[in-house]
């Protein structure tokens, strides 16, 4: 078990059209025993980063180390890491036992007896003991997934690298495996880097999230930090489902002026955005209040466009009153027990304590929501400074 330290890691690929920068000057310090999730849209360089830690790709610049040991230019065989692939990559001609012992036979000096013991212990832990003598082709997707995990676990490596391991499972199994993986990682206490494009997986499983976009690191932090205190508009939009509402606004006389609404700001918020005129106004769907009518400050008349009932909650698409109904401006989530009808005229409240403001050009976050009501006496879970 070790710290994994990436220092200024850059990866460039040569293409017919020139150079593609897959990963750009990435600094990351993954602490011993930490579960770090690398998340981002497809093509953001997260898999490339993981493959560089595994040694399957060599970084163009920068260094990677396990604790004090520099591993930048070592081959995968020389690094003590284990990887789980999205396709599982189980050896089809070997039994489950063969698959799980392969790494131990190749990478360690363990005796046959010790290998057998380790494999059987891991199989028991994963609930695949009865499958040890079957071939991968005879297993279901979920079982293959466990075998792939088992193959990594028996190695007892310095770090686990998981590349979208749950992507090929159906939704129900995926959420089961999510919990199981978390337990497993807590028990083993091994440094883990987990790559996914699914922000739900990132939020629920990780100790810390690293959000990547276009090969650049956007933010590293606990899930709730990324959720409530995004560094920029990309992180704000990527984390959270349904994603944050964004409206383009300009600052005029201490008020935000959008296409369909005006939003007066308090001095406190104004101080944060000083010197920026073109802004993006952001608010999370669950922070939009649905009212009977717009009555006071920060409340606006609106029309319900579409309601998507989810059972526990409803996702409501809303349009400002003056707006054409073909494009809805805001998405809101409300309790599933609350009834709103399509085309109903209502009021919406956009509380100032819940708004985020971003620079329109750079996307940089200028003002994040206040956490007063959540924090109370207790600080936000895991929100201590990194």
């Amino acid at each position, binding site marked *: 078990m070790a710290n994994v330290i990436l220092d200024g890691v850059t990866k460039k690929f040569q293409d017919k059209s020139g150079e593609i920068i897959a990963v750009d000057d990435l600094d990351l310090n993954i602490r011993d025993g930490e579960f770090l999730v690398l998340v981002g849209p497809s093509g953001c360089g997260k898999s490339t980063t993981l493959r560089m830690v595994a*040694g399957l790709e060599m970084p163009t610049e920068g260094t990677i180390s396990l604790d004090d040991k520099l591993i930048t230019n070592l081959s995968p065989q020389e690094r003590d890491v284990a990887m789980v*692939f999205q396709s599982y990559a189980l050896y089809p001609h070997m039994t489950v036992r063969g698959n799980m012992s*392969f790494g131990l036979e*190749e990478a360690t000096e363990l005796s046959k007896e010790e290998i057998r013991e380790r494999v059987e212990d891991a199989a028991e832990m994963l609930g695949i003991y009865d499958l040890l003598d079957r071939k991968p082709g005879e297993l279901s997707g979920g079982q293959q997934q466990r075998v792939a995990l088992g193959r990594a676990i028996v190695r007892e490596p310095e770090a686990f690298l998981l590349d979208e391991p749950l992507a090929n499972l159906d939704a129900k199994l995926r959420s089961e495996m999510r919990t199981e993986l978390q337990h497993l990682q807590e028990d083993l206490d091994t440094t883990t880097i987990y790559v996914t494009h699914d922000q739900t997986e990132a939020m629920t499983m990780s100790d810390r999230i690293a959000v990547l976009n276009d090969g650049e690191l956007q933010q590293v932090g606990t899930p709730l930090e990324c959720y409530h205190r995004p560094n920029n508009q990309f992180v704000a939009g990527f984390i959270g489902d349904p994603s944050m509402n964004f409206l383009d606004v300009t600052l005029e006389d201490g008020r935000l002026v959008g296409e369909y609404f005006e939003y007066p700001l308090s001095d406190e918020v104004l101080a944060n955005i000083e010197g920026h005129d073109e802004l993006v106004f952001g608010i999370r769907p669950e922070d939009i209040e649905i009212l009977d009518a717009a009555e006071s400050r920060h409340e606006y008349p609106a029309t319900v466009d579409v309601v998507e009932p989810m059972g526990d909650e409803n996702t409501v698409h809303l349009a400002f009153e003056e707006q054409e109904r073909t494009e809805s401006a805001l998405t809101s989530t409300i309790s599933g027990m609350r009834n709103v009808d399509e085309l109903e005229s209502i009021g919406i409240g956009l509380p100032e304590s819940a708004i985020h403001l971003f620079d329109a050009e750079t996307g940089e976050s200028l003002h994040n929501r206040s956490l007063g009501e959540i924090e109370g006496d207790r600080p936000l879970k895991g929100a201590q400074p990194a």
Partner: protein
Amino acid sequence: MSQATTSEPDGVARLLPEISYRRLGLYFLILAFVAFFVSPIYTGLVTSLKAGGAATTPFLPPTLDNFTLANWGQAFDQLSRGFVNSFAMAIPATLLDVILGSTAAYGLTLVDWRRQMPVVLLFVFGIFLPYQAILVPLSDFWTNMLPLTEGLIIEGITILPASDRWGSLAELTITHVAYGIPICFLLFRSYYKTISKELVEAAKVDGASITKIYTRIVLPLSKPMIGVVLIYQFTQIWNEFLFSLTLIGSSSDQAATITLILSGIGADLSGVNFPLRMAAAFLAALPTIVIYVLFAEQFAEGIAT
């Protein structure tokens, strides 16, 4: 409830099965093809079982009077030396081709290193080298530059004792191996391209070396393609005539392969002994048929991929 209605034809037509003319035509065509392919085998077999030199009625089966197995016995006697020679040459040549072709394909497909493509192209180029173009330099090479018939001694260790028969066969074997590598390489390469790259990467992360990845992962997965290459290459080498003729020359040579002997069997000044020739042809073809049967399963699997 409505009753199901059927339109039953009346009279005689009801007794006949429904025949579509399309289907009938298809059967006829298939039958014609079967006859086309079976008839030479049939006439050959029938002729080989008849006594007497002339084959005047090739399509008639042998009568009780002129039925004999003597041709088969005689053919076997004359071919036996060729059988030994051909097996001694074809089996090692085929196995070496499989080993060399698959290792070369592994190294050039699943192992990463720079500038692979020119090497791949060199292999592909080898496939298109016409036999005729290399015959003269080939015989020159084995007679003047490296005459294995005089034995091969490296640093005092005798690798091959001087022997006209085994020396010539060794030359022929090496020639076949060299000429077979490109096509075997290409067959294995196309197969290895279908193997998931992640499988090799998983083995790398598991700590396996390049040779271990080959012996423990890639080779076991190559079984279907090994079947294909074994059948294909053995048949090629077994049936090959031109190299034998160039390097060995005459059917009376001690090293004569089965194809060389077959070309002269049953022909002398008194005419052609067709029954003997037919029996010999069947015997000579037997090993390739056996190979097909032995590896048919892998062959079908390999072709399908």
